[in-house]
């Protein structure tokens, strides 16, 4: 074992406050070789300089490292000497001259050791040997002393020592920081023996502290189940946000992706424990001790020092009625004592366009062929072509419905306005077009994001300040989508008096997003054979498309209607080109978030302190979108709102010419005020025998969503900033008769506003007692009250509480000596957490509303019928856990088993409509989550240059619905809404399916509850009757949608300055439905259309709608539904993903010193490089709607470059 590995091991632990450092290390890594160092000369000038300072200076200049016992410094005399042009050894001689200890040089390490006193009495004998760890690696600098005497020696760089011992004092003690003390009885050992001493690491002392937001406790006193992700682990990769930094690092924490990438991942801890959508699954987020309304994705990951995930009741129930989903505690960075640190990060993210080929779309030619078949089938149902087109409507004739350009082409062919040759020419031209390709080439771009982060921190005994600036800018997948974000974080702590500390912090974020109209995000906008650019690269304006404006009630138009208005100057063009439209109607949204907090801490007496904290958060967003008069949607709305007065033969434009400006200002704010008394003190022997820690306090919290400010202006002119007053009564409340048929209205801002204010008042306390550092008991209690909640006093003050016990087994004498077991801690907890859904109330609550007929009249609309028994949702968690470290902590980790029983869950219970309500929300549901979580961390191999580390995180969860209150009428309800309808004793979100019977003649058939086919065939295999299956008894339970297990494997290999890391994540045990083609619609684009049923019987796929005979078309949707949700379509949803792989290089100290920097690290990383999915067929289960069987683009690869500089 070499010094540098030893030191890097030390650096990991040196920041731990639990550690009462008795050895100080001053080290600066140097790679100068020894010969060169020997030839160098140095000059020093000390004047009453403490030895500590002198050593630091010598270390800095010479590159030598010192190892010594901090106790020596107490005895050290200050230095006053001048050294000029001396060699290193001359310098050392001069420094240690006159001190009562000496030194020994070993390579580049100076081991300071006491002057061995000559032992005068009795015969002595010498013992020599080596101190090693359990893997045989030498431990240099270990203290070897004779029990009962003060003298001793330290091991050299090879861990070797020689000591003289008197026979009467024949026990040697071996000590080294971070390792358990070892005794060696020399009674049976002869003179000049060589011994080998194995020290086992004391993982207890080395481990982290537990931060629950209310207090900080050393791990040995904790009974709770929690996982801490420290700064080093958070920054193993370059993270897009804090959520991704946590992925795969916490057993039991699952990040559920939004399949369309439209929102941030949703964290779920230990399974779903509520039915209520307004409670949701998200754990409570706490920043620096106080609950926040921030979500993890908006926190700057570079500001976070550590993340602690509180999993069981003992950890989380101190958060009371909002903690049943678990709690995630964030601790922000602060300065380190006597250290000024400046860190700069620059990251570049490039995310590729998604791979559209994995969507398995049919080709343009196939789609044209298919649509032609559909046209022919539809045409065959009518006597004439014009009859067929009649239901599509026209101006003054029925309701206008859109039909495609291909239909129009055939219509023109039929009515003779186009010749067969013209049609065929057009078709062959269209076959060469590919709208999706043009869209992905011209509308999509690689997403690029640049992030810069600068942080400064400084700390002294008087104050501690951390300040950071973060700038983030990016461009989205669709052109013209941009975002910018600027984040400032400032936190400062002042120690005014020895007993009084104050902290003040402020965190501000400003974000500006520019988004194009969301309706244009999809390449389904136009037919596949349409064009965006022509052969010359010019934009193609399509005459009309199937997109309505969305501002009015006007529907889409068709070619027949367009033909009648095309040359009419009263109407504007309906022409559309996606690239033009993406320049229009850009929505700019600006967010500002502010979090500011203050914390005052006063020590009252020894062990007792008082703490008052206040936090205020405000977030506001301002959205503005402007469509100018020439934009597609404004032209469309203008046309739709045009009417024709037959009496005067005049057109009336009910919507003024001009643009549309829509604005929306929203905000929310909250504050928390907490007062708390804390007590921490040990009693008895060494003040360690009995240790008490306790807190008690109260908390007030208010959350508020004020009124929103919303406006829409028409006829808006961005130059004059004026708009036109509208006759809202006519345009919105009544309606206008549109030239395009029917009555049309203009959508307006709602007249109703809402304001939401909630208040919570809580008292809480917890206490822990530790005996001899081995036995722990803990308990906590909290009572919450909230507005409009818990009317019945029986429930109003019902406490949420927890109790726990822990045993630090490895601190027991009989295990202390164990060679392989370094840490064993056993803990068990039980407790109750709550959840709150404030959409319910114990009172009869009405909402005040304005009448429409008599606008000044106000009436009361009943919102909630009284529910006097309303109470918190409760989750009782039993947790049993083991923390372990074995083989010199080469292998460490934890195992947790839990049983979460959620009861009193708010469920919607169906009522007999006769009683006057269809359903009511009652505390009536129960869910159970049982599971196991395993974390294994292996430091397999570690030497000077190499370091191999593997971490495995595994979580298993079994979820069961225990009570059921609303039985659905139909089988389809269980299939389509598994989170609302369930059977008792099944998993929440179960996948139900119809029983597939088989297929005859392209008609699939299914088995009903009696096992009978729902389709009756005649002798020729043609269906005579097709029935739907609606009895829930006919369903088969195929498994569940939520994964049963998930986890990660993280592998890291470091060689010198290089580090290669990879994070695999996996998830499985759940099911998904195949994305089958709809049999009941002609609007299908999957490549399956080319392989569909044919009369030759060569396909194993069923008929599509177009293949159904006229007499059965209405049954196609019945069979389609059964087919889509049959047991035949269920696939395994398990997957493994290489979430990221990164390579980083840290510049050598030599180089950084030349650059005047303290550290430089360059990283390159690829996210989502590879995945395997059990379902196959290019399905990416993370971006797949499992229950509906809908495919979305699989996660594209991202390439990331990062630079990290420490000054």
């Amino acid at each position: 074992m070499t010094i540098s590995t030893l030191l890097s091991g030390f650096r990991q632990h040196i920041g731990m406050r639990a550690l009462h450092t008795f050895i100080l290390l001053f080290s600066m890594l140097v790679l100068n070789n020894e010969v060169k160092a020997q030839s160098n000369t140095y000059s020093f000038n000390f004047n009453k300089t403490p030895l500590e300072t002198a050593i630091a200076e010598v270390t800095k200049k010479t590159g030598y490292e010192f190892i010594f016992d901090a106790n020596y410094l107490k005895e050290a005399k200050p230095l006053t000497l001048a050294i000029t042009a001396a060699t290193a050894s001359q310098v050392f001689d001069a420094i240690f001259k006159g001190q009562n200890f000496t030194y020994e040089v070993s390579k580049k390490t100076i081991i300071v050791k006491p002057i061995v006193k000559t032992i005068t009495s009795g015969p002595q004998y010498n013992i020599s040997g080596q101190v090693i760890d359990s893997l045989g690696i030498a431990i240099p600098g270990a203290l070897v002393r004779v029990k009962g005497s003060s003298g001793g020696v330290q091991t050299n760089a090879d861990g070797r020592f020689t000591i003289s011992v008197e026979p009467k004092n024949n026990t040697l003690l071996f000590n080294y920081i971070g390792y358990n003390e070892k005794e060696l009885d020399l009674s049976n050992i002869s003179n000049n023996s060589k011994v080998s001493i194995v020290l086992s690491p004391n993982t207890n002392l080395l481990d982290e502290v537990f931060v629950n937001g209310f207090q900080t406790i050393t791990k040995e006193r904790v009974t709770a189940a929690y996982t801490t992700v420290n700064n080093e682990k958070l920054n193993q990769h370059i993270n897009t946000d804090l959520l991704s930094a946590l992925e795969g690092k916490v057993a039991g924490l699952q990040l559920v992706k939004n399949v369309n990438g439209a929102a941030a991942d949703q964290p779920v801890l230990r399974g779903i424990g509520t039915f209520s959508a307004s409670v949701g699954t998200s754990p409570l987020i706490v920043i620096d001790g106080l609950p926040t309304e921030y979500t993890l994705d908006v926190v700057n990951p570079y500001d976070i020092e550590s993340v602690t995930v509180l999993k069981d009741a003992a950890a989380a129930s101190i958060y009371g009625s909002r903690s049943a989903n678990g709690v995630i505690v964030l601790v922000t960075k602060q300065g380190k004592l006597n250290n000024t640190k400046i860190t700069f990060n620059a990251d570049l993210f490039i995310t590729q366009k998604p791979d559209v080929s994995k969507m398995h779309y049919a080709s343009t030619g196939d789609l044209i062929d298919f649509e032609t078949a559909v046209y022919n089938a539809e045409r065959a149902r009518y006597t004439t072509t014009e009859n067929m087109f009649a239901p599509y409507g026209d101006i003054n004739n029925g309701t206008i419905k859109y039909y495609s350009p291909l239909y129009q082409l055939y219509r023109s062919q039929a009515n003779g306005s186009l010749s067969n040759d013209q049609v065929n020419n057009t078709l062959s031209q269209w076959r060469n077009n590919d709208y999706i390709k043009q869209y992905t080439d011209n509308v999509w771009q690689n997403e690029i994001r640049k992030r810069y982060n600068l942080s400064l921190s400084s700390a002294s005994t008087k104050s501690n300040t951390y300040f950071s600036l973060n700038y983030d800018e990016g461009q989205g997948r669709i052109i013209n989508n941009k975002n910018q974000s600027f984040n400032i974080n400032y936190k400062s702590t002042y120690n005014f008096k020895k007993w009084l500390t104050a902290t003040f912090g402020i965190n501000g974020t400003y974000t500006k997003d520019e988004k194009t109209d969301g309706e244009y995000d999809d390449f389904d906008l136009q037919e596949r054979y349409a064009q965006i650019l022509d052969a010359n690269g010019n934009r193609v304006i399509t005459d009309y498309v199937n997109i309505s404006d969305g501002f009015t009630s006007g529907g889409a138009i068709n070619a027949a209607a367009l033909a009648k208005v095309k040359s009419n100057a009263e109407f504007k063009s309906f022409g559309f080109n996606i690239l033009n439209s993406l320049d229009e109607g850009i929505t700019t949204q600006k967010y500002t978030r502010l979090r500011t907090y203050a914390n005052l801490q006063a020590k009252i007496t020894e062990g007792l302190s008082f703490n008052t904290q206040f936090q205020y958060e405000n977030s506001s967003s301002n959205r503005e979108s402007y469509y100018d008069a020439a934009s597609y949607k404004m032209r469309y709305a203008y046309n739709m709102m045009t009417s024709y007065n037959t009496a005067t033969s005049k057109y009336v434009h009910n919507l003024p010419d001009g643009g549309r400006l829509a604005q929306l200002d929203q905000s929310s704010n909250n504050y928390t005020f907490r007062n708390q008394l804390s007590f921490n003190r040990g009693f008895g022997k060494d003040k360690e025998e009995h240790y008490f820690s306790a807190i008690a306090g109260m908390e007030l919290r208010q959350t508020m969503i004020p009124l929103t400010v919303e406006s829409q202006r028409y006829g808006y002119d961005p130059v004059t900033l004026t708009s036109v007053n509208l006759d809202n009564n006519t345009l919105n409340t009544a309606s206008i008769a549109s030239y395009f048929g029917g009555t049309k209205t203009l959508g307006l801002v709602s007249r109703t506003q809402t304001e939401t204010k909630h208040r919570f008042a809580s008292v809480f306390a917890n206490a822990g007692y530790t005996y001899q550092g081995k036995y722990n008991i803990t308990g906590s209690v909290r009572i919450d009250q909230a507005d409009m909640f818990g009317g019945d006093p029986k429930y109003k003050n019902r406490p949420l509480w927890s109790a726990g016990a822990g045993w630090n087994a490895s601190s027991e004498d009989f295990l202390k000596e164990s060679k392989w077991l370094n840490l064993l801690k056993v803990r068990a907890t039980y407790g109750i957490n709550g959840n709150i859904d404030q959409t319910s109330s114990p009172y009869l609550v009405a909402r005040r509303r304005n009448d429409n007929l008599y606008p000044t009249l106000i009436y009361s609309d009943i919102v909630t019928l009284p529910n006097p028994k309303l109470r918190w949702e409760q989750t009782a968690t039993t947790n049993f856990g083991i923390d372990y470290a074995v083989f010199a902590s080469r292998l460490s980790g934890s195992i947790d088993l839990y049983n979460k029983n959620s009861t009193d869950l708010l469920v919607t219970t169906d009522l007999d409509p006769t009683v006057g309500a269809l359903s009511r929300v009652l505390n009536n549901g129960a869910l159970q989550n049982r599971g196991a979580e395993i974390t294994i961390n292996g430091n397999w191999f570690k030497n000077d240059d190499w370091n191999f580390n593997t971490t495995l995180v595994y979580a298993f969860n079994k979820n069961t619905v225990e009570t059921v209150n609303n039985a659905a009428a139909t089988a389809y309800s269980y299939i389509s809404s598994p989170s609302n309808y369930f059977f008792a004793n099944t998993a929440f979100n179960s996948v139900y399916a119809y029983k597939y019977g088989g297929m005859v003649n392209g008609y699939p058939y299914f088995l009903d509850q009696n096992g009978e086919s729902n389709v009756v065939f005649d002798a020729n295999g043609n269906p005579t009757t097709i029935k739907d299956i609606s009895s829930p008894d006919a369903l088969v339970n195929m498994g569940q949608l939520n994964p049963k297990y998930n986890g990660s494997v993280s592998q890291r290999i470091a060689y010198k300055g290089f580090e290669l890391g990879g994070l695999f994540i996996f998830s499985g045990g759940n099911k998904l439905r195949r994305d089958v083609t709809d049999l009941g619609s002609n609007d299908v684009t999957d490549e399956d259309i080319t392989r569909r049923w044919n009369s030759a019987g060569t396909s194993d796929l069923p008929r599509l709608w177009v293949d159904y005979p006229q007499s059965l078309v209405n049954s196609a949707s019945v069979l389609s539904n059964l087919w889509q949700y049959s047991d035949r379509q269920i696939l395994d949803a398990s997957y493994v993903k290489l979430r990221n792989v990164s390579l980083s290089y840290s510049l050598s100290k030599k180089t950084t010193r030349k650059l005047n920097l303290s550290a430089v690290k360059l990283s390159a990383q690829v996210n989502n490089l590879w995945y395997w999915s059990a379902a196959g067929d290019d399905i990416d289960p993370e971006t797949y709607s499992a229950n509906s069987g809908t495919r979305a683009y699989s996660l594209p690869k991202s390439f990331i470059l990062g630079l990290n500089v420490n000054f």
Partner: protein
Amino acid sequence: MKTYIKYLVLLPAFLSWSCKKYTDVVPKGSLLVETTKDFYELVSYPNRGYPINNFQYLVDDMWIRESSVVGARKTVDVVNFTFDETENRVNLLGSSSFYNQAYKYINRWNTVISLVDASKGDESQKTLAKAEAKALRAFDHFLLVNVYAKAYDPATAATDGGICIMDKYDLEATPTKSTVKQVYDFIQKDIDEAIPYMEVQPADPYHPTLAFAWALKAKVHLFKREYAQAREAALKSLTYNDKIFDLVAYTKQGGPNVVPIVAANNPEVLSYMYMTGYNEMNFGYSYIISPELKTLFGTNDARYNLFFNSTSASFLDIGSGTAYFNIGYLKFFYPTVGLKTTETYLILAEAYARENKLGDAIATLNKIRVNRITSGTVNLTVPATTKEAMNMVIEERRKELLFGFNRFFDLKRFNLEADYAKTTVRKFPIVNKTVPQQTYTLKPDSRLYIIPFAQDVLKKNPGLTLNTDETILFR
């Protein structure tokens, strides 16, 4: 550290402990219903919808677009329009929005009736709140019993299956079905208990008036064939409100497109209830009237000429001889489900006719007609027989009381009397020639006239039986 500093630091803690009222927040825009005044205000409930889709096409006055039937899936609409007695309607009725809405309103009235006594407030306001709520509760039960049960037949009402009576606020109740007579008795009791305490001019237009209560009483008596009492109640109602809006003068002024008549300006309205909602007439094209009714109007009836469109190809099958109400509610407020003064006149006219006071009957009809018929025969002449007079009353009812429940209820009750029973015959389709035209017949005693309870009710209330002979497959 000095002791007083310690206490200073602890001060905020003590201050906050004293904030007992901290969590007593009443959200803005919301109201905790606690006082008598709050309960009284609950009686005022605008925009009540009573959807008619369970039977809309069962009546001879209504028509449907041909594309909704030809080649379409068999829905309740198709079954009703084609008078299809073979279909088990329970299978098509997962839930009935009319049923659920009506009982939801009853629950609101019961909230007032059951809980107002315990509230703090003026005793007379409590009595008033209960009286008004009872009047409205009677109205809702009246609609329900006439939809889901046989019309009142004095001979069999005591044994005919009715509906569940909900007489108090109780979400845990297991309702049981009463007979038609029991329901009518309950309705009458509510009205009779309400009338002595109700007001002529209550706090706002949505509180029921005495005119409404008496008109409702008249209607209930009429349906029970208690003509003398119906006459007395109708006359009593007319003493509070006898206004008829003059459509003839209105035609001269230019009609709704020139002079809009919003709700507050239509003096005929006795109560505000709708098929869907206050703006339903904006979408009048969903209520197409049959060629038969259109013909009945003739050419000089302002009730048709002012409001109907028969030419829009967007909403009508041109050539079918149908029409739709084409005037939005802001141009002319037309009540569909609620009572109006002209209905009171029609009740009075019928009562006179039944009592063989034919002159009075026709004179009453003519009071309406002078305000409706723009030319030609305005005043009807007194016929010789009750039956003839009654046919004139029925015809006038069809033209005056459009949409809503009126024609459906009338057909049900008249079908029980041999003199007035009607077999409805429909030839369909008229325009579409691709499918053969068929003749559909609805006999007066068809089971279709009684709407079966929907599945959601039958499932939650296993004791509830149907009033028709259809089967409940899941039982």
